[in-house]
């Protein structure tokens, strides 16, 4: 335990800086830029039971300070992950979060079961992917289904369970409470916002699936609000993300109520951003004589003067 240690309701991170699923692969590429042990956790690319090829190209649209993606959960499948990626990630002193996805509730149960006896530290139940035909985000917009998915996962595993929520809802608090009630250990949010682009030359949506997910600095003010709202609605800890690009952003999320933060899109812009954020948080705490990161979590919800 040190001043940066955070306890996500059973999952202990060396520090609150993590990286978001789908923006960090399985860590190999970034290990060429820095020591992955500097990260509190790595949430790996979204996994499914079987290999997925993903969506047709184009999959990427740049917007003003944002990125629309329609990758569609391309991944090598959970077996490949277990065999080839876990051993590599285990070389580092960081927590491994397996981001799991299903077409239906059964799939989530099977994924949880399959990973139960494997060497991962937490399962991140993604009920918020906007880029797939079945399941995905739909599960995250209905509190009952969200509840059921989480219940099913917990019936099939003793692992620490994080549930990843979508911001494309009227009232995030209802969903957050449902997954808390179902027994989730922690919540991560936000996944991407549904967005689109139309090609004015072809006069058609650019993406084959029309709608993609918007991430990046553009969404930061919105994501922060979701974290702030959820903080006061539930007791379980939050991993906050959405547009974080520097340590000030990260500190905002922590003050809003995030026990840990994840960097997503900005990893593409500055591969070193995660470690720079760590350093920035350290400086912020030192400059202000803040003893432990815990003192900062959720502070913006209480502070009066």
């Amino acid at each position, binding site marked *: 335990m040190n001043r940066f240690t955070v306890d996500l309701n059973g999952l202990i991170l060396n520090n609150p800086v993590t990286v978001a699923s*789908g*923006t*960090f*692969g399985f860590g190999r*590429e*970034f290990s*060429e*830029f820095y020591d992955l042990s500097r990260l509190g956790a790595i949430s790996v*690319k979204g996994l499914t039971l079987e290999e997925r*090829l*993903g969506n*047709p*190209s*184009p*999959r*990427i*649209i*740049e917007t*003003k*300070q*944002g*990125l629309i*993606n329609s*990758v569609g959960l*391309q991944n090598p499948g959970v077996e490949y992950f277990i065999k080839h990626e876990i051993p590599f990630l285990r070389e580092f002193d960081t927590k491994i979060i397996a981001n799991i996805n299903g077409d239906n509730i059964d799939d989530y149960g099977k994924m949880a079961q399959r990973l139960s006896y494997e060497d991962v530290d937490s399962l991140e139940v993604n009920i918020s992917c906007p880029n797939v035909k079945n399941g995905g985000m739909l599960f995250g917009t209905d509190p009952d289904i969200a509840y059921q998915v989480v219940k099913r996962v917990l019936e099939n595993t003793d692992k620490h369970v994080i549930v990843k929520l979508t911001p494309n809802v009227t009232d995030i608090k209802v969903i957050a409470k449902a997954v808390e009630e179902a027994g989730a250990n922690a919540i991560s949010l936000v996944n991407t916002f549904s967005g689109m682009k139309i090609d004015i030359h072809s006069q058609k949506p650019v993406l*084959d699936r029309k709608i993609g997910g918007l991430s*990046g*600095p553009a969404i930061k003010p919105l994501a922060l609000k979701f974290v702030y709202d959820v903080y006061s609605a539930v007791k379980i800890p939050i991993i906050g993300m959405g547009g974080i*690009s520097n340590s000030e952003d990260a500190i905002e999320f922590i003050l809003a109520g995030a026990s840990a933060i994840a960097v997503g*899109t900005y*990893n*593409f*812009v*500055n*591969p*070193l951003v995660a470690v720079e954020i760590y350093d920035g948080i350290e400086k912020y705490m030192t400059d202000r004589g803040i003893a432990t990161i815990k003192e900062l979590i959720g502070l913006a919800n209480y502070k009066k003067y």
Partner: protein
Amino acid sequence: MKLLQARISEIKTINEEVFSMRLEFDNSFIFRPGQFIDIKVSEWDSPLLRRPISISRKISENEIELLIKIQGTGTKQMRKKMIGTEVDLIGPLGNGFYLDDLVKELPLLIVGGGIGIAPLKSLVNELKSRGYKNIDIVNGFRKEPYGKEGFDTFNYHEVDETKEGIFVTEFVENNLLNRPYQQVLACGPKPMLQILSKMFNEKNIPIQISMEEKMACGIGVCLGCAIKVKKDLFNYTYKKVCVDGPVFYGDEVIFDE
């Protein structure tokens, strides 16, 4: 693959749309023809994403030249940068052209389209330094041709497409299809690469094509730069232009997206 700082040492106007930019590194910068770098254009994140640009020429151990066509915000801003400005980039990236299977003695065809000539320049320089002589090169341009230096020490032809009323692919079809090339190497717009691939696949002449796709990360993690390629006899899968390419064999790419 490294995150590097480089200094802009020269910018030269080639024509209204195209310019060259030289980058100087502190240490030697080693690359293979066909590789690219991913440049952070704006300190202020507009555009947000890096821009992939091929390495067009080695000037010295620690200096390279890029050949850039102005398309939108990113390239427009690059054009406006001042000599001496520091540029943040990741590179070298991608695999580049596969030269190990080639033999010096057999004829090669190289086909470029527009700004697609950029990586072909370093390719031709490399082949030259390896002693290749038997190379036909054809570059097609919509407007006034440019950048013939380096190409013209070989059997070089420029197609001024608008003036001549003929596409570079048609030129190849009309004039070069019967030559016994060991391989073809090409870079240019997708339709050009598609036509050339079809043409040489049918003749069973291997063709290497350098592909483009929108990129978010450039390093293989975002899965944004997918292109469809054949798998087994009847299936397909996706490969990443940034790390599996940008050079692919023309008979593996499926051009239906």
